[in-house]
């Protein structure tokens, strides 16, 4: 077993060697610009790009012409939200989203609010689930878009995409889903699920960084977008900029591989996730699972270790690459907004660790991770005044704390 152990697959993934191999010719030999219409260098890669487009489209139940390549999911989210908002502003200026979306969705929504749009952020329950009835009731005459993610990047909770798509279709409102964490991990079919716009990025499923796509429905209904980048009119005018041919080839190959093994991989990862949680629970008290117990991404486990601060915990397991919702890991001094929206207390938000498992995670690694986490938590609880107080029967909510 090699150290350090990478357990941050929700942040990014290594590129599969087969993907690198597929990409290689398009850096040096077939380096043409796909928009060059006058010579074979251009024609050759145009064909390659179209094949990749077709493949990617088919893997999510769409057509190739409905795929707009971007630099990644952040751009796709921005294009979907800002592009729809601008194009349909005469129809309406109301958008519905949720408080636990990625910042790439929340921030464009907030920017639109400054320009006079109205945004409804739906409530989420303690598991991060929305209420479909509230969604339905929130849709108004002037609602132009509902944007709700497939799977949450921090806590793993899945949205009922199919049900949401049913509601938006019945109400005649466009539905965008940020499926950054879902594509390649859970079954997605834009046709069956009535998705109108879908964001994805290759590096979350063993493809390269810097290449993503926005699926834009072409019929029933035909979705229109105003571009947010202007230039050569690439991607049918929706996204100007020379196409990243090696990236696109890698994207298609990576998605093909991921979808091929999706069912077996999901089962394997769910098993590893449960094994890790069971191990932790068998040795430690005051452990809290963040996110939905079962309706979650197969590869995501998010746990708060009560009375232990997240950053000090990560410091104690420095041969493990995990992520923390603690404020101390960033310069913001605010703990995770996602955990806050779930009603997780700030004390437990500071104690949260996200484990992201993936293709190269082994049982042996999971057992090692569990052992190291347990040892670190026990050691830190030995020096935790909060753990001592709780063990002495003190109710921490009754203590007069001095904030600073």
């Amino acid at each position, binding site marked *: 077993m090699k150290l350090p152990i990478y357990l941050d697959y929700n942040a990014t993934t290594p590129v599969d060697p087969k993907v690198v191999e597929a990409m290689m010719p398009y850096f040096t030999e077939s380096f043409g610009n796909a928009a060059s219409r006058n010579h074979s260098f251009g024609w050759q890669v145009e064909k390659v790009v179209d094949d990749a487009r077709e493949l990617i489209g088919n893997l999510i139940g769409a057509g190739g012409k409905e795929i707009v390549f971007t630099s990644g999911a952040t751009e796709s989210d921005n294009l979907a939200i800002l592009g729809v908002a601008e194009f349909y502003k005469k129809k309406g200026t109301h958008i519905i989203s949720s408080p636990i979306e990625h910042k790439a969705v929340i921030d464009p929504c907030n920017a639109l609010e400054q320009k006079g749009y109205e945004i409804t952020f739906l409530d989420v329950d303690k598991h991060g689930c929305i209420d479909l009835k509230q969604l339905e009731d929130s849709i108004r005459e002037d609602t132009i878009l509902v944007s709700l993610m497939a799977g949450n990047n921090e806590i793993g909770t899945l949205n009922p995409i199919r049900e949401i798509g049913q509601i938006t279709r019945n109400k005649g409102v466009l539905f965008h889903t940020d499926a950054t964490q879902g594509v390649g991990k859970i079954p997605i079919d834009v046709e069956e699920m009535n998705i109108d716009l879908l964001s994805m990025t290759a590096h979350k499923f063993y493809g390269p960084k810097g290449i993503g796509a926005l699926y834009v429905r072409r019929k029933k209904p035909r979705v229109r977008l105003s571009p947010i980048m202007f230039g050569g009119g690439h991607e049918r005018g929706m996204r100007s900029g020379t196409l990243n041919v090696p990236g696109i080839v890698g994207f298609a190959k990576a998605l093909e591989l991921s979808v091929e093994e999706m069912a077996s991989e999901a089962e394997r990862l769910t098993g590893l996730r449960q094994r890790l949680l069971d191990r932790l629970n068998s040795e430690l008290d005051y452990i809290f699972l963040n996110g939905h117990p079962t309706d979650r991404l197969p590869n995501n486990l998010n746990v708060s270790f009560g009375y232990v601060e997240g950053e*000090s915990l990560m*410091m104690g397991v420095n041969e493990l690459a995990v992520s923390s919702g*603690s404020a101390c890991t960033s310069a913001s001094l605010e703990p995770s907004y996602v955990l806050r929206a779930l009603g997780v207390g*700030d004390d437990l938000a500071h104690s949260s660790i996200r484990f992201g498992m993936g293709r190269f995670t082994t049982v042996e690694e999971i057992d090692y991770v569990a052992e190291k986490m347990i040892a670190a938590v026990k050691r830190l609880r030995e*020096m935790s*005044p*909060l753990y001592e107080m709780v063990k002495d029967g003190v109710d921490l909510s009754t203590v007069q704390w*001095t904030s600073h």
Partner: protein
Amino acid sequence: MAYSEKVIDHYNDPKNVGSLDKNDENTGTGLVGAPECGDVMKLQIQVNPDTNEIVDAKFKTFGCGSAIASSSLATEWVKGKSIDEAMSIKNTEIVEELSLPPVKIHCSVLAEDAIKAAISDYRKRSEG
């Protein structure tokens, strides 16, 4: 974030972790910070009432590595000092000793507050 070697040393081998009997009239307990803020320090001192010397100090800290290191260092520094000398320990000295970056200065402030809170608790109880 990269930690200084001294922070890592204190984190890996913290000095004076533990608790003193808070009901002993010669001890003082300072509990500062709040769980919601991600830092809580409990610092305790044991004082020789004849000499006003701090003869022992213990801490327990919920917080990041820098918070643990700051409180560990604080207990080391107060030991052997008179309570007046300990009162004059400044957070900036802790920052310097541990090479704390700007985002971690609040950890040193908390450690200074913890020392002062422990001394004030001792004074209150020894007078009362």
